């Protein structure tokens, strides 16, 4: 019997125009039905109807949290205020993720159009895009797009003669991961340090300049015009029971095809990594895939066939996050990986609350101690206990999720932590006698002359002298050198 092995195709909603239209020419966006969704809502829909359509579509925030977008708009819409704001969160700080950047560079008008639709829905006349200063091309394309939209009357006063005014301004970030958190982002927009506030009040009640504010992510916005044009039923028909539509992932790491993939919710990681990603690079074995960046965790072989959506990915110990997906091969040291993430979070901790400021630093120090072979078995218990403390008591999402990379890897790869804690980890190179052809290349490159052997005879590493520089590994023509 034949089985269907055809990979599921990618399905582009958020990335529908990226690469197909010239992002610096508004006419090309209009030619693919751009700004028709805005025209449709302004001429046919009441603001409440727009909110209803987005609610019915079950679109959820693509920035990581997965909060229902329609509900966020409704909460902001029902506040009474002389001014309200729409903010586009384009502070894509998750290392290894670049979906928002691609949308902003490849299809900036879709975001502008969606922001105007959102403005109409909640009763706001002003939008801000908070964008990383590290993305100069996206900034310049957005600036161009805003000016073109203004000159066509698609931003500004009395859009489509509907009496609705909406304009958008760019605001630059300055390199702070915590600003992805919406209250920190709002503080940064106001020229302050990007420190988060306690919630409530939520931004929908008191946000930018103390006014009702809806903060939505770039990818979330990119879905909006398509939902308006094709209807909520269409959007609902894609995806899983609780997660509708598609998700863009930034596939990177040790995989053959790196880049962005957009797949329906419910696609499995195996399909993404093997069918789309072309498998692991350099013929290595798969070890794990890291999702959710510094807030997420690792997923191993046994869960590769789980259909991915917001709920299922949590159940298998990670999180959707903004869509970073880093493939790890057999060579990846999981303790070093945790240390890498904690180095990031302890550096990016804003310092406002103690559990995050001090806790992440101590976590990093324990991991550093372990990898320096100076740790003890007690460190493992301490690591877990402190991780739970930091998770439970930090003020914002950064601290609450910072220990996730540790908890996830210690659960699945405990033996790697123990090898460091009990100091049984091998740290030097050695030679596989059966493979060695005695070519002498390794002994010639060894900077400390600790490899000996006769020509055409297996060579030996004096492991007491080895400094683990890896020169022999790179020099060996027959892969006979065994890594630590």
């Amino acid at each position, binding site marked *: 019997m034949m089985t269907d092995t055809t990979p599921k195709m990618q399905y582009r909603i958020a990335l529908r125009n990226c690469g197909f239209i010239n992002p610096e020419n508004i006419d090309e966006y209009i030619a693919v039905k751009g700004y028709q969704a805005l025209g449709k809502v302004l001429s046919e829909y009441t603001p409440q109807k727009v909110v209803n359509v987005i609610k019915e579509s079950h679109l959820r925030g693509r920035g990581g949290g997965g909060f229902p977008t329609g509900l966020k708009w409704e909460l902001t819409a029902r506040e009474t205020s002389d001014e309200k704001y729409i903010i586009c969160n384009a502070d*894509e*700080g*998750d*290392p*290894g*993720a*670049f979906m928002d*950047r691609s949308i902003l560079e490849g299809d900036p008008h879709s975001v502008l159009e969606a922001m105007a639709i959102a403005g109409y829905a909640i009763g706001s006349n002003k939008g801000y895009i908070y964008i990383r*200063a*590290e*993305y*100069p091309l996206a900034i310049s394309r957005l600036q161009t797009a805003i000016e073109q939209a203004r000159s066509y009357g698609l931003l500004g006063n009395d859009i489509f003669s509907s009496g609705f005014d909406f304009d958008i301004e760019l*605001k*630059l*970030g*300055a*390199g*702070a*991961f915590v600003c992805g958190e919406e209250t920190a982002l709002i503080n*940064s*927009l*106001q*020229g*302050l*340090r*990007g420190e988060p506030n306690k919630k409530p009040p939520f931004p929908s009640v008191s946000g930018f*300049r103390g006014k009702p504010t809806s903060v939505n992510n770039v990818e979330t916005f990119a879905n909006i015009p398509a939902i308006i044009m094709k209807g909520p039923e269409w959007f609902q028909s894609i995806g899983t029971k609780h997660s509708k539509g598609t998700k863009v992932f*930034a596939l*990177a*790491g*040790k995989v053959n095809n*790196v*880049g962005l993939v957009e797949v329906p919710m419910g696609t499995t990681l195996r399909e993404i990594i093997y069918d789309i990603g072309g498998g692991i690079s350099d013929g290595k074995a798969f070890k794990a895939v*890291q999702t959710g*960046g510094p807030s997420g965790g690792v997923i191993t072989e046994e869960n590769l066939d789980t259909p991915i959506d917001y709920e299922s990915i949590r159940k298998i110990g990670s999180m959707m996050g903004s869509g*970073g997906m*880093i493939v*790890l091969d057999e060579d*990846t040291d999981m303790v070093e*990986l945790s240390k*890498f*993430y904690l180095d*990031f979070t302890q550096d990016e901790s*804003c310092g406002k609350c103690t559990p995050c400021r001090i806790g992440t630093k101590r976590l990093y120090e324990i991991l550093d101690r372990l990898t320096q072979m100076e740790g003890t078995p007690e460190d493992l218990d301490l690591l877990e206990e402190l991780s739970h403390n930091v998770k439970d008591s930090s003020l914002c999402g950064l601290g609450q999720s910072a220990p996730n990379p540790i908890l996830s890897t210690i659960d699945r790869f405990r033996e790697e932590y123990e090898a460091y804690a009990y100091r049984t980890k091998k740290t030097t190179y050695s030679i596989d006698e059966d493979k060695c052809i005695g070519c002498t290349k390794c002994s010639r490159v060894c900077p400390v002359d600790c490899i000996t052997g006769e020509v055409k005879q297996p060579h030996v590493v004096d492991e007491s002298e080895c400094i683990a520089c890896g020169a022999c590994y790179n020099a060996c023509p027959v892969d006979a050198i065994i890594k630590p």
Partner: protein
Amino acid sequence: MGNIDLSFTNLDQDKLTELKTYINELERPEESLIHVLHRAQKLFGHIPHNLQFFVAKHLNIGAARVNGVVSFYSFFNEEKPGEYDISVCMGTACYVRGADTVLHTLLERLEIDKGHVTEDGLFSVRDVRCIGACGLAPVVTVGEKVYGHVTDDMALDIIDKYRGEHNDN
């Protein structure tokens, strides 16, 4: 902070005038500090302490608030970078593909620590947050130029290339 020259005489006066004009034209100066600092860094390359005072004075806010913001955001430099400012991306994709050894190689060859400048003022090296070029990992940038799939050997070639360019000029 030590002694700070509050006369601003060691700063380029034309650039200061330009910055002052920019500040005066702002619609909402009270919430524009980050934009002003971006402009200041673009003009001067870095934001030394007396320039922070200048910004504070013209925005009519405390110097502590300015310094608080400058030191909070990693994009702003208080120290002057080298003529060739080398950034090694430390995003996860670059990291798993060996960005840490590339960084180490650069620092070792230039004999400096991370975030510092060589004695001749030619090079500075730092690690930066993900620049979103994960498909090219590991990535090194020098000024606006991006180098992808960088190996240790390529990193050394990059230094030689810029040193050569400098010597030719």
